[in-house]
């Protein structure tokens, strides 16, 4: 592999993976904050408003890091992937520009009002500002997924004489069937992260016997929202996504499942280590016929294995793809199990005494992040060897004028910046969580607030 290509890929992979740790939480928390604000309006109980304010602070910190790490993404299409931009810019530039115009303006305009304008707004207007932030973040998600969907399954374009892609159908681009399943799958994944983080913070408070009333509403909201999200993830959206793959990227599906040979009644591999050289799976535990059934709803349907495709069409990193996919699915199954048990205990009103369950809920918050990351890796590693599936290979897309040395310089720079950002982020979040959701009686401004909290 050309080393310039390698560094451009590494930089994009690193910056996008890091970036998405933050929007998945903000997109997941936004609707839950709206739930708290709604409960406040409905019941007039200020505790819900305090809860909304607490989560807004967590949201705000994540949002800032999401913004500063997000701007490089759009820019890198031009800086590091100029040949791709030249080829595809006329099409996917549309969705990216729409994200700016329809989502970011909405989100950024109302975020300031939502975070700092509560005193200036009526409760209803403040509810609307929360709603606007929620809508903005979810619209933004759609345009990004639509952009990715075009790279996965190009629609609504024609190749021009100069070799670049030109848009021919606006709705073909915006309503790409690939985007619809992927969007709902992705947003359910974001809600899952938000829900698990909320439940984890609540469990932490319950286990440390602090802010107990708030903690119970956090756990309740987290478990219910997480349960709904997990059902949507496994049920319609994950299934729809899988069948899209079978239809449009069969080689990717075969690689994800490490199915080397085409066969009827293909088994579903639960665990095992693929050996791409020998075309086998070591130590595998399989469910017979399950892959055929899940893909085609027939136990004996033939599923195409990698042998059905020329090797030049295979994703290059089959093992990584296989693991990403299996980690996502495996974790999804575990989430479902945790949430079913927690939901049952909640329903039987036994959750607050089941400290073991609170421990599990508290400790499991990192795993939705891993599952979401693994899911995106499945999509993007699975798209290989193409940058735009079937149209442009990754090796053709990078900036030929930007040398590997310049690429390493900026990649190392990003790594350094993001290391500092991580330290700062963890510090700030830990402080907010230690501070907790109780309001401070003192109405003084910033500096005095924390002191007052300490004294109290």
């Amino acid at each position: 592999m050309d080393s310039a290509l390698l560094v451009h890929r590494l930089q994009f992979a690193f910056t996008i993976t890091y970036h998405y740790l933050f929007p998945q939480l903000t997109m997941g928390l936004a609707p839950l904050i709206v739930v708290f604000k709604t409960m406040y309006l409905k019941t007039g109980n200020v505790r819900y408003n305090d809860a909304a304010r607490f989560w807004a602070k967590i949201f705000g910190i994540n949002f800032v890091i999401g913004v500063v790490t997000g701007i490089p993404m759009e820019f890198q299409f031009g800086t590091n992937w100029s040949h791709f931009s030249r080829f595809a810019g006329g099409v996917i530039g549309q969705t990216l520009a729409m994200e700016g115009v329809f989502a970011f303006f909405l989100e950024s305009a109302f975020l300031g009002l939502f975070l700092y304008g509560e005193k200036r707004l009526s409760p209803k207007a403040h509810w609307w500002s929360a709603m606007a932030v929620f809508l903005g973040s979810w619209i933004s998600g759609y345009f990004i997924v639509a952009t990715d969907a075009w790279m996965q399954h190009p629609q609504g374009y024609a190749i021009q004489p100069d070799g670049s892609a030109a848009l021919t159908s606006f709705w073909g681009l915006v309503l790409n069937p690939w985007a619809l399943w992927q969007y709902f799958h992705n947003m359910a994944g974001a809600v899952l992260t938000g829900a698990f983080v909320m439940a984890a913070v609540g469990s932490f408070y319950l286990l440390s016997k602090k802010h107990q009333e708030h903690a119970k509403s956090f756990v309740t909201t987290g478990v219910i929202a997480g349960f709904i999200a997990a059902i949507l993830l496994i049920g319609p959206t994950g299934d729809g996504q899988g069948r899209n793959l079978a239809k449009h990227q069969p080689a990717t599906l075969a690689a994800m499942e490490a199915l080397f040979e085409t066969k009827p009644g293909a088994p579903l591999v639960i665990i095992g280590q693929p050996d791409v050289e020998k075309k086998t799976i070591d130590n595998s535990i399989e469910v017979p016929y399950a892959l055929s059934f899940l893909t085609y709803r027939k136990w004996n349907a033939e599923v195409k294995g990698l042998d059905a495709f020329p090797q030049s069409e295979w994703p290059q990193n089959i093992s990584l793809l296989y693991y990403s996919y299996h980690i996502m699915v495996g974790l999804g199954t575990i989430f479902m199990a945790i949430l079913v048990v927690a939901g049952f205990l909640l329903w039987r009103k036994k959750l607050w005494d089941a400290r073991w369950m609170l421990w599990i809920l508290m400790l499991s918050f990192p795993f939705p992040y891993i599952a979401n990351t693994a899911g995106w890796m499945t999509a993007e590693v699975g798209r290989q060897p193409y940058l735009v599936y079937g149209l442009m290979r990754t090796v053709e897309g990078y900036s030929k004028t930007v040398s590997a040395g310049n690429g390493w310089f900026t990649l190392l720079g990003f790594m350094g910046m993001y290391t500092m950002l991580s330290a700062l982020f963890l510090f700030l979040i830990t402080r907010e969580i230690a501070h907790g959701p109780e309001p401070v009686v003192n109405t003084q401004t910033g500096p005095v607030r924390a002191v007052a909290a300490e004294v109290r």
Partner: protein
Amino acid sequence: MATLWFCIVAVMLAVYVILDGFDIGTGAIHLFAAKSDDERRKVLRSIGPVWDGNEVWLLATGGALYFAFPQLYASSFSGFYLPLIMVLWMLMGRAIGLEFRSHIEGPVWKKLCDSVFAVSSILLAIFYGAALGNVVRGVPLAADHYFFLPLWTNWRVGPNPGILDWYTVLSGVVALVALSLHGAHWVALKTDGDLQQRVRKASLILSPALLVLTLLSLIATLSIRPEVLRNFKLAPIGYIIPLAVFGSVVLMFLFTRRGNDKGAFLASSTYLTMMLVGVAFALYPIILPASTGEQFNLTIANSVTSAYAMKVALVWWTFGIIIALGYFVYVYRMFKGKVSLTGSGEHGY
């Protein structure tokens, strides 16, 4: 249609420069203008609720540029690789310095944040000016429409230029002074007392400096790139632009002396707009001139996307931008008037 999109992108860029320009300018001057912690917080509060929305204009402009002129986006972003990535780092530094300052108590942290905010803003101003200077000077585009510039070579504008040479550094300094003035006018508009007096005084010193620097950069531009006069000769109405540029500098000075901060702010907005309009007017229909020969210029015609894409985008863009302007009017009205430090316990900054 292509020219219309050229104008739309230029207007969006101008809006970005005016709006985020005062954020950057505020950042550039605040270490010198605001002395106490209370004053610093006032300065931050004057831009706190709006800077993020202002920065979105950069993304929206980038997006519009991306789909309307994909070739320009691809060539210029990869060619200006290093400074662009550094701009991203500065944008990060600015946001962090601004947003997280009040999250941690203690003078050391605040000083650190203030410095990061100031240094990032100053460098952003210089880089933006230098970027514009590069566009005017031209870049070594090859036949395949691509180029790559190192940060600097021999500091000369000759055949082997870097991003930074004496000309683009001059542009950077012009931008720094212009944006500092713009920021000073914004702060004067939003504050009162000693702080307001201090930024007004700064404005009175900076505006004559800007006049001299603008004149110098005009002379420099004419000497390294006499072709810029071509469009002015074709359409003499264009001479209004330099007149407006110099007129607005004089107006900044006069308005500030009379204590009319709004007038001064409008004057610096006019200055920034007219500088951009001047560049766009002088280059049209070129959008990125080649120092390697006229035949390699990137023009509107050889960079533009398909007619259908422009048509359909015009529909959603018009619709979206009207809504977005509505948000901006609403938000600026909510936060209008002088900033104060009292009475808002939940306020950040």
